[in-house]
């Protein structure tokens, strides 16, 4: 599985994404969130993964803003506030300007965070990311668990479909009321869970037979390239992230005093 950001060391987009997430939530609002979202979507589009990242952002930000607006329009206190000057009409309901700005602010921050992390989801191969982390000292057991989990997910989806089909062939009804569906759940979940647990015994034997050592760091036949310029850029990103957090904490402490 290859990713759109494969020309970079996976730790570089990860550091940039984390910086954007922190900036969106800790910087001056709403401009830091707007800037973080614009950068996240701009980079995603420039790297050829704009549609995927936009879909991820929309799936979270749009329902959130709608729910927040509906909540403001239907809850008693917001209706009272909305009756004042500057209220905005949404259909037959009225929402205060402050509530609309709040809802947009929350969605912008959320969209920026999902958009930035969307680079990793859409553009970085998880296996490559795990290898890069292993080269930075991630223990072998952590790397194994992450990679094996990523590989086990599609296999489990396939097996879940097989179990569903097999049980339906045996006459299992998956419709009707909640009690009937709960009975169906027990008949579907049981074989799936038991088969996955028993399979883990075979995997453990295979790991032991290969002399798997959970504590040792793994070497790589083909190490992931990490150019000097990229290492420096990453150091700057981490530094900026720490500085941003320190500034936010100092501001909060001043406010508390």
């Amino acid at each position, binding site marked *: 599985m290859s990713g759109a950001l494969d020309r970079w060391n996976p730790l570089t987009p990860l550091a940039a994404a984390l910086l954007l997430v922190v900036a969106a939530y800790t910087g001056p609002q709403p401009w830091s969130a707007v800037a973080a979202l614009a950068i996240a979507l701009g980079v995603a589009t420039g790297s050829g993964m704009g549609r995927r990242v936009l879909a991820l952002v929309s799936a979270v930000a749009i329902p959130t803003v709608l729910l927040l607006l509906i909540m403001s329009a239907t809850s008693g206190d917001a209706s009272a506030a909305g009756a004042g000057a500057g209220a905005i009409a949404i259909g037959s309901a009225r929402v205060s300007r402050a509530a609309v700005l709040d809802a947009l602010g*929350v969605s912008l921050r959320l969209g920026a965070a999902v958009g930035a992390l969307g680079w990793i989801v859409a553009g970085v191969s998880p296996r490559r990311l795990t290898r890069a982390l292993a080269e930075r000292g991630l223990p072998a057991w952590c790397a194994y668990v992450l990679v094996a989990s990523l590989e086990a997910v599609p296999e489990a989806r396939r097996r879940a479909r097989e179990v569903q089909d097999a049980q339906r062939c045996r006459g299992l009804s998956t419709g009707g009321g909640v009690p009937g*569906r709960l009975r169906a*759940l027990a008949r579907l979940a049981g074989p799936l869970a038991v088969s*996955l647990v028993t399979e*883990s*015994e075979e995997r453990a034997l295979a790991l*032991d037979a290969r002399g798997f050592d959970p504590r040792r760091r793994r070497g790589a036949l083909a190490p992931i390239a990490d150019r000097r310029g990229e290492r420096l850029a990453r150091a700057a990103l981490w530094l900026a992230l720490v500085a941003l957090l320190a500034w936010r904490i100092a501001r909060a402490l001043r406010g508390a005093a």
Partner: protein
Amino acid sequence: MSSPLLVCYVAVRMPASRPLPTLALALVPRAVALNLALGAIAAALKLPVYLDSVGTILVAALVGPLGGVVTGIVSNSVLGLLVSPQLFAFIPVTIVIGALAGVAARLGAFRSIPAAAAAGVVIGVAAALTSVPIVIALFGGVTPSGTGVITVALRAVLGISLERAAEIASLSTDVLDKPLSCVLVALVIARLPRHLASRLRTAPPVRP
């Protein structure tokens, strides 16, 4: 919120100095996959529960709190990478679920259905109380899910504060979901080959 976190810290801190046995390590990826697969089956059956923690609770029950915590973290990280990055935000909730399920297993909660259901209620309450501050701080009080819709409905009907509505919504879903998950785990453990269940509970840690 601090009490569940304290319980988790104590439960995980004790065995943290030694790695998980190989059998437990091999079980974690299957449990992560189980979380996703059962979540899909629950959605296909149109059940009002998520069932996305069954794998985490199963590992916690078979291996202990550390196994549950590792499974919870890996599960939300992997699903965050594969499905939606918003799941990263709920890693603390899965840590609480894994740790408390491990503690419940040590107290023998998965030996009978009523005890498993009771443990599920406790885990559900702790999970809900852990998720509410995250939902309020990051999502403005509503997540784009059934719980978010319940929060909006509660505020509209009862006129209560956002925090209280989010709390009740989270409690109502988690207190239904986690007992059912724990009962499923108890049923699965009862069906496991005896040698496998005992190996998982007593497997020695791998030493270099």
